[in-house]
């Protein structure tokens, strides 16, 4: 086994063809600079989103689904419940970290500030009943409990 191809090797023609016609595209330097700037901007935004993730904001006034910077109001009707918790990826599935507040009648609500992403979640009543979100898409659940999923788009 020698390192180089022998003089009559047909692969020499292959190698010759492979060394031609692959020049870098015009404007590579500028495009790389623009992409680097975008990457730096994304990194800064990501850091900002991480900071926002620690804020939980309870909101009394319910607005229709409209432009939002990650403000999500979770609400459901739970007749005869003495209390309701929101559990999901964003609470690390702890059942007592986010409580909904009464919003009149049987309605319970809480509003969270969430960064863009996709989150699995459900409601749990103080009676231990698991409930899906009435407005969110249902998802197949490995564990046989009602589960919903929410996508928060980029603003």
């Amino acid at each position, binding site marked *: 086994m020698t390192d180089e191809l022998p003089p009559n090797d047909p692969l020499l023609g292959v190698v010759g063809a492979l060394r031609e016609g692959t020049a870098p595209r015009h404007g590579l330097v500028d495009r790389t600079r623009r992409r680097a700037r975008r990457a730096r901007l994304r990194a800064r935004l990501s850091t900002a989103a991480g900071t926002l993730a620690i804020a939980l904001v309870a909101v009394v006034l319910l607005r229709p689904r409209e432009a939002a910077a990650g403000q*999500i109001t979770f609400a459901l009707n739970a007749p005869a419940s003495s209390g309701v918790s929101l559990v999901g990826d964003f*609470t690390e599935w702890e059942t007592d970290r*986010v409580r909904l507040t009464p919003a009149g009648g049987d309605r319970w609500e809480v509003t*969270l500030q969430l960064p*863009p992403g996709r989150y699995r979640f459900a409601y749990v009543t103080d009676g231990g009943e698991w409930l899906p979100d009435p407005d969110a898409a249902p*998802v197949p659940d*490995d564990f046989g409990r009602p589960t919903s999923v929410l996508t928060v788009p980029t603003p």
Partner: protein
Amino acid sequence: MTMTRFHPTLALVLGLATPLAAQDASSLAGARSQRGAELAAVDQRLGGRFPSSVALRIHGIIDSATAEGLPAEPLVLRALEGGAKGVKADAIYVALGRLRASMRLAAQAIGLDAPASDLSTAAAALQTGLAPVRLVELRSARGTASLVVPLGAYLDLTARGAVPERAWQRVIDLARRKAEDRAYEAIDPADLVARRPEDRR
């Protein structure tokens, strides 16, 4: 569940978990170098919720996934979800195994350096029957943008009864046109449901 404008009346800082979306798309090498710290955190969270034998086995599944360069966080969250729902340990092991396998396949399609949120959403899409090559198409169409919103839209549409192929066409069309994330939200599943039996594929 409703998206609202910012209207702060009461702010409570409760230390919510950093969501998947906030995780940066780290390189494989970077991910591996973070592995020690990541697993230490995993141990702590799992240790508080599961008996030690269960936590150890879950740790082993997650450890093998991170050794492949897959992110730990989606697996940890799924384990914690199972714990919160009070299911048997075996069901958690099975769910984690499925998720790991789907994320592995997703990583082959969109790259191991994809953000954890992209990988876990892509894994969910694969579990509903989306062909891996579709993920490749979407990755190409979206450039460096996150795949969470288009894949999330596809999953939501099909969950609401849209014909998968039609839902996918709508999503990939938007991706190719570089549509904003909001455009995916506006897709009406009613336009995509099967009207004749032969429409449903």
